[in-house]
């Protein structure tokens, strides 16, 4: 029975859910092409992999176009810095860039404090901290190549790495950024687009709970514009942003299921 199930699922492809969504971008906006020839509401081709670092409790590698990120999760392990008892766990996040991540000279592969704190904020609402009291979970992200929308890729990848480490979460986390140039809104901008954007919008959400854990907006936005982006991202995220993630999670849960089955077989 178990073998039959396994055989059936080897050729799994994500189910396409028939749901209509309103057009996010009007036709009048589509009068110029993006540097990589994508549509305005199209994400870059993504590659997501778990288990990239063998020494970590969980790890993931993500590639969105030219943005390449590796995230490893260590723990839950003893808090080295903790002085007092705490009945909820601690989360420690660090985002760093390699020296060759961006073409700018003299960038010494430094830690990115701003991104570290934003990653922390994005993740703390998703992880069930009370499941690992007194201990710390370390999330280390390394941007191998910076090709635009670095932080959203880091956050999505971190969510995957946490799942791979078996850390309890309310939902898998996904992040996406939107750039506003002139009247057009474009999803998942590359570095060139980020450099000339009028405004940017970064949102982290838990798709199945449609809950926003982190949101930053810069530049000037009108309220209808924000409403539009907010609503479209929520609608969009289960499709373009998460289809890859869902695949991986599905594979991951499949793995767990198969382990459980094996365990049951052993007991019997």
């Amino acid at each position, binding site marked *: 029975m178990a073998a039959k199930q396994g055989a059936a699922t080897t050729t799994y492809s994500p189910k396409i859910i028939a749901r209509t969504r309103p057009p996010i971008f009007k036709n009048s906006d589509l009068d110029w092409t993006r540097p990589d020839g994508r549509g305005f509401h199209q994400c870059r081709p993504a590659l997501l992999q778990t288990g990239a670092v063998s020494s970590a409790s969980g790890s993931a590698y993500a590639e969105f176009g030219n943005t390449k990120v590796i995230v490893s999760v260590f723990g839950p392990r003893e808090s080295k*810095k*903790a*002085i*007092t008892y705490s009945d909820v766990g*601690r989360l*420690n996040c660090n985002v760093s860039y390699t020296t060759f991540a961006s073409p700018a000279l003299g960038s010494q592969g430094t830690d990115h*404090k*701003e991104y570290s*704190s934003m990653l*922390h*904020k994005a993740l*703390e*609402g*998703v992880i069930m901290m009370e499941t690992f009291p007194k201990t710390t979970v370390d999330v280390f992200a390394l941007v191998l190549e910076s090709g635009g929308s670095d932080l959203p890729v880091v956050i999505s990848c971190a969510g995957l790495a946490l799942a791979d480490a078996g850390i309890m979460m309310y939902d898998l986390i996904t992040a996406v950024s939107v750039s*506003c*140039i002139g009247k057009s809104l474009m999803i998942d901008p590359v570095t060139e687009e*980020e*450099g*000339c*954007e*009028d*405004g*940017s919008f970064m949102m982290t*959400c*838990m798709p199945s*709970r*449609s*809950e*926003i*854990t*982190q*949101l*930053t*907006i*810069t*530049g*000037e*936005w*009108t*309220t209808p514009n*924000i*409403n539009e982006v*907010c*609503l479209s991202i*929520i609608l969009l995220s289960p499709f373009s942003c998460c289809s890859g993630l869902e695949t991986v999670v599905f594979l991951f849960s499949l793995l767990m299921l198969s382990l459980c089955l094996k365990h049951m077989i052993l007991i019997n």
Partner: protein
Amino acid sequence: MVACSVGEQHFLKGGIAQELRTDGRKNLTYRHTYVETGVIPQANGSARVRIGGTDMIASVKAEIGRPSSLQPDKGKIAVFIDCSPTAEPTFGVSFYLALVTCVLWFLLGRGGEELSSELALALQKCLLGGKSGAGVGINLSSRLIKEGRVCWDLYIDGLVISSDGNLLDALSAAIKAALTNTALPKVQVSAEVADDEQPEIDISDEEYQQFDTSSVPIIVTLTKVGAHYIDDATEEEESQMSSAVSISVNRAGHICGLTKRGGSGLDQSVILDMISVAKHVSETLMNKLDSKISAAEACEDES
């Protein structure tokens, strides 16, 4: 950091649920605001803003610099925030007794330094707009003296003297007041020089010009405690918050920036609701603040 007992927590949350907070305010009412301008003679512009127990000084210093090669038509602005250790023991190591708590807080990642950089980052996001320069609160082009050569570099410094919650709102109000107070001397640039030479500059002692600060946004922070959200939270209330959203709104009613603090997630409809509430609140707050700033300016001129 305030520690509340369970009873106090219930009292706080119950009050907010019934639109009557511990200090007698309604959920969307600000504490008494007090504005004083021109408090630091060494700076080009300065202001002190008090909102309840929160006390801030903002100063604007200007120096002549070169615009960056990437944006030759714009001046530069830097925002620094300093959380004085006297404001709260967790901000520094000034007292022996505070040392232990400080180390603790610092290790937990909430020391004064981290708070300062977080506040500065949020303000930078709200004041400087998008990368192309759209939607800026402070018009960077007006700081330009000669394209590609000479511009004003503005250094905005905020100092938290005393902290009783709602730091970001108070800081944005203080910065707006300080910018209104700022007077830059008129500068004459010698007409034509070779490309690689720095032109001669003549700074006038008598003539000053002021900024147009009407487009500088203010920040409204809505703090979610339980199922309700409140304006201008005190430190006690902030210790009970689940999340807080800081929204910067300009005079036109446009959103110039938004940052979220606090762990728990929010439903998107709640965020959209918060944005519309913040827009509404900011309108009255902006009018109140403007009249206070002009009163303070008039007061300074008299003395």
